[in-house]
């Protein structure tokens, strides 16, 4: 292949990748991709899915503060009024208010939905008197119209039973807690992160448009966290990229004294990232923000390969010859790194599989560009690089002493640590402690359901699970009576089973009898004879109407509520019983354990996710150890021919141990992301060690390896330092472990993997 055709091929690949990404790139930031995908317990899977995609995932709790009550209520009302006009929101609630009940779809089913046995003359007369009072007391005409149809307020009682149980006080017609006005804003279900972002911006802009003067709006909820996280990730990527460019500029100008080499390195790195992103996008139809942030930084490792080429090229050695000399360790380095990442595939985490593909493609692309294209672009390039001192080689005794020190010391320290590994998924929650507290406080005041503690029952038969739901509810009522929990919400009060509906139907009076009772109850009252005809007709038709189905709730006032509590998946019905305000968690757990029914249907989402995470953490550890063993086997194979190669593996082991120890010293427990970062440490450590060790007796090679590795270590450490200070826990975990691990690997490899001084 000629030079021109090779360059043309390169241009086509890069241009096609750029074009593809420009049209298709979708960056997501939902943490669920870093959650196990293949959960065996179906109920657990359903619950985790619900917690990630259900109503609560799209619920925003808003708090307006910083002004007087009159102004805050004005802002609350204006915000509600304006947001309700926008399609992004399915509901905005800032008070307990039922308007226009007369036209509600479920109204005609009220006598099946809620029990009512008060059709005697006295009860009816009392209801009519109440209507008269309401009429004279300026009650809104909409409500009077409703009372004429439903004088016993049966439907209102039904709605009240299933409404939000808030402890917020109503002032000026809106919810208040203390001196803050509250709203619940529901973004349309199944909204993408972009739509959520847009909806949040709309809320903020609408609030500002209402001229809040000194008042402030505070939002909380899962979607707020997701959008904030995405913003933080993008910021971190920008900072990391900026840091990398500055460092590279410094390195190339100061050490290689060549801007042209800087351009070549940038082309290599940028092309690799572009190709890796395109392939990942093609395979997964999206790229996770964490994969992008970690992946791009991890691909900073790719800078190593052109650096090796540059450092081994000099006025006497051409780039083509330099590659021939370093090709073997280069290939081993790339392949071991790819192996390390491949270990992530099949862990059950979609995000990690994505990361493995992204990193592997990136590494492979860099190798190919470094080997096949760099020599082409460096044909007439003379490199006059600044020398880096090699340092003194250590004797065998010193090496053994240092080896024992750097392996045993962190190993002993780690063995003393209890609870080092963390499987609590809340640690992965990127929300700050302050925002978690605001969210928890608002949820409690607004009577939002507990997200963590739920009861779930499932069956193919809807009637059966509604009955079981009622039984669970009966048990939970005892806990409410004992003030252990504030209340419960479930589908049985929303949609009674057919048996209950049938019973209620049978209990309704016949038309003639009711007509007579109404007539007698109205005597000496100013109502016209036909004033309650709609009421009588509704009861009459309720006696014969088909029983209410799940489907009848569609587009009703309670549609989203019932869909969140009762749903069908793959032919199986699931009924969720949610708990409100657990006042004493220990007593709650104790009572749950005492009841066979409650115990068998109770789920703690965090504990459940923790168990699953624990399982996967173990699996990932196994893979990591397998990876280390593989490296050890490769090293042994090398050592078979040259005993000095045995030192290659030691900096890697030590780097891993020191990095983990540092986390323990910081008081951090090890999560899945630390583990994942260790793969990068292993890959880099092995790379450094391999090059320090390779060609051990030829000082010129050693000098070039030291040169390349030093530059690589500096750039990697500085780039990952940006991640270490990121606001996103996950990224800071990755940053910290890589910085310490790589630094340790570099220093130890410098002393241990380099040739042994035989003259001391």
């Amino acid at each position, binding site marked *: 292949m000629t030079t021109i055709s090779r360059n043309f091929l390169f241009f086509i690949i890069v241009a096609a990748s750029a074009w593809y990404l420009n049209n298709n790139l979708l960056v997501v930031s939902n943490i669920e991709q870093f959650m196990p995908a293949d959960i065996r317990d179906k109920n657990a899977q359903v619950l985790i899915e619900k917690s990630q995609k259900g109503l609560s995932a799209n619920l925003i709790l808003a708090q307006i503060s910083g002004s007087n009550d009159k102004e805050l*209520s004005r802002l609350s009302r204006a915000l509600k009024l304006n947001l309700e006009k926008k399609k992004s929101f399915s509901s905005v609630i800032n008070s307990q208010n039922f*308007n226009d009940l007369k036209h509600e779809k479920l109204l005609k089913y009220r006598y099946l939905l809620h029990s009512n046995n008060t059709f005697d003359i006295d009860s009816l007369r009392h209801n009519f008197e109440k209507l008269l009072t309401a009429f*004279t*007391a*300026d009650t809104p005409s909409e409500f009077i119209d409703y009372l004429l149809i439903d004088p016993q307020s049966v439907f209102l009682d039904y709605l009240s039973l299933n409404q939000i149980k808030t402890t917020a006080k109503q002032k*000026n017609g809106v919810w208040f807690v203390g001196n803050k006005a509250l709203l619940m804003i529901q973004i349309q279900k199944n909204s993408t992160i972009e739509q959520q972002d847009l909806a949040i911006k709309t809320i903020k802009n609408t609030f500002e448009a209402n001229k809040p003067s000194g008042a402030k709006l505070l939002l909380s909820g899962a979607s707020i966290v997701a959008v904030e996280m995405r913003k933080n990730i993008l910021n971190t990527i920008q900072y990391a990229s900026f840091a990398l460019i500055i460092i590279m500029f410094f390195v190339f100008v100061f050490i290689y004294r060549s801007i042209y080499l800087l351009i070549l390195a940038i082309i290599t790195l940028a092309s690799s990232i572009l190709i890796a992103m395109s392939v990942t996008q093609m395979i997964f139809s999206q790229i996770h923000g964490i994969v992008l942030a970690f992946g791009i930084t991890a691909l900073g490792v790719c800078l190593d390969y052109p650096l090796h080429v540059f450092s081994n090229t000099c006025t006497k050695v051409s780039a083509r010859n330099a590659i021939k000399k370093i090709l073997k360790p280069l290939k081993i380095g790339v392949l071991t790194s790819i192996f390390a990442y491949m270990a992530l595939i099949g862990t059950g985490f979609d995000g990690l599989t994505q990361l493995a593909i992204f990193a592997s493609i990136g590494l492979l692309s860099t190798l190919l560009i470094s080997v096949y294209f760099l020599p082409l672009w460096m044909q007439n390039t003379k490199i006059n690089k600044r020398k880096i001192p090699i340092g003194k080689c250590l004797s065998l005794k010193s090496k053994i002493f240092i080896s024992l020190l750097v392996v045993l010391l962190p190993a002993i320290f780690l063995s003393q640590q209890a609870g080092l590994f963390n499987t609590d998924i809340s640690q992965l929650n990127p929300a700050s402690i302050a925002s978690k507290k605001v969210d928890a406080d608002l949820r409690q005041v607004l009577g939002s359901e507990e997200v963590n503690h739920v009861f779930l029952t499932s069956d193919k038969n809807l009637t059966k699970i509604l009955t079981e739901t009622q039984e669970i509810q009966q048990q939970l009522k005892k806990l409410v009576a004992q003030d252990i929990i504030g209340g419960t919400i479930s589908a049985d009060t929303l949609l009674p089973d057919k048996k209950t509906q049938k019973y209620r139907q049978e209990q309704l009076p016949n038309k003639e009898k009711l007509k007579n009772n109404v007539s007698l109850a109205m005597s000496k009252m100013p109502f*016209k004879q036909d004033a309650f005809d709609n009421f009588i007709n509704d009861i009459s038709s309720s006696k014969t109407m088909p029983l209410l189905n799940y489907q009848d709730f569609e587009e009703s006032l309670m549609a989203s509520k019932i869909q969140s509590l009762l749903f069908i998946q793959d032919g199986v019905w699931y009924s969720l019983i949610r708990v409100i305000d657990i006042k004493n968690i220990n007593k709650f757990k104790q009572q749950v354990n005492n009841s066979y029914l409650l115990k068998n249907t109770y789920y703690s989402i965090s504990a459940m996710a923790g168990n699953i995470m624990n399982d996967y953490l173990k699996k990932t550890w196994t893979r990591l150890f397998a990876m280390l063993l593989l490296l050890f086997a490769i090293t042994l194979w090398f050592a078979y021919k040259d005993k000095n190669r045995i030192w290659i593996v030691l900096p890697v082991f030590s780097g891993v141990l020191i990095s983990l120890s540092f986390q323990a010293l910081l008081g951090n427990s090890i999560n899945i992301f630390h583990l994942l970062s260790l793969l990068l440490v292993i890959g880099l450590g092995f790379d450094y060690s391999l090059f320090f060790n390779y060609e051990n007796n030829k000082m010129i090679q050693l000098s070039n390896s030291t040169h390349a590795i030093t530059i690589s270590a500096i750039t990697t450490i500085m780039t990952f330092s940006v991640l270490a200070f990121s606001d996103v826990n996950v990224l800071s975990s990755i940053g910290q472990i890589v910085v310490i691990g790589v630094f340790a690997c570099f220093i130890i490899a410098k002393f241990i993997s380099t040739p042994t001084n035989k003259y001391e």
Partner: protein
Amino acid sequence: MNWFKFFLLLLIVNPIVTYSEIEIANVFGLISKNPNKTLKFVELRSATFFTEEIKTTGTVSFNDDGLMSKYIATPIKSEIHITDNTLLLLDDDGKREISLANHPVLASGVNAIRWLLLGNKEKISSNYFIEYSNKLTDWKIKLIPRNSEILSRVSSILITGQLGNINVIKLSKSDGTSVITTFSQ
């Protein structure tokens, strides 16, 4: 002409001369300056589902901040307090708070009276078309809602009075029913 007769005529004619050209702005000014802030009322409410008008009696009071309280004495005791955008009902069943913002029709009637008592002509004219007529010291103000949704429920509010006193407010609904409130000292 007898000087005494002339003097007597002057005394009689004087107020007529003073107020013969009473403008609507003067009416609003006089109402807002009226020191009597508590009035008795008799209210006759009709509705399509009643055979007869329902009569309620009680007192109504208001202050310069826009707070209006209505104490219904008969037929059943209850209280209504209106502050800003909230209507608070107190009766045997307890307390009920209604946000006027959620009930524009109710708000329309309440606000028209409240703004009139405060002499706030600007607010009234931005929400209603105003028809004004007067005869000597008596005046009539007819308010027709500008908002079509409100107009479909409330056809007009007719207020009659004399100088700074409101005598009768008649709220006519589109279904032919009405609420007539007659005030007295």
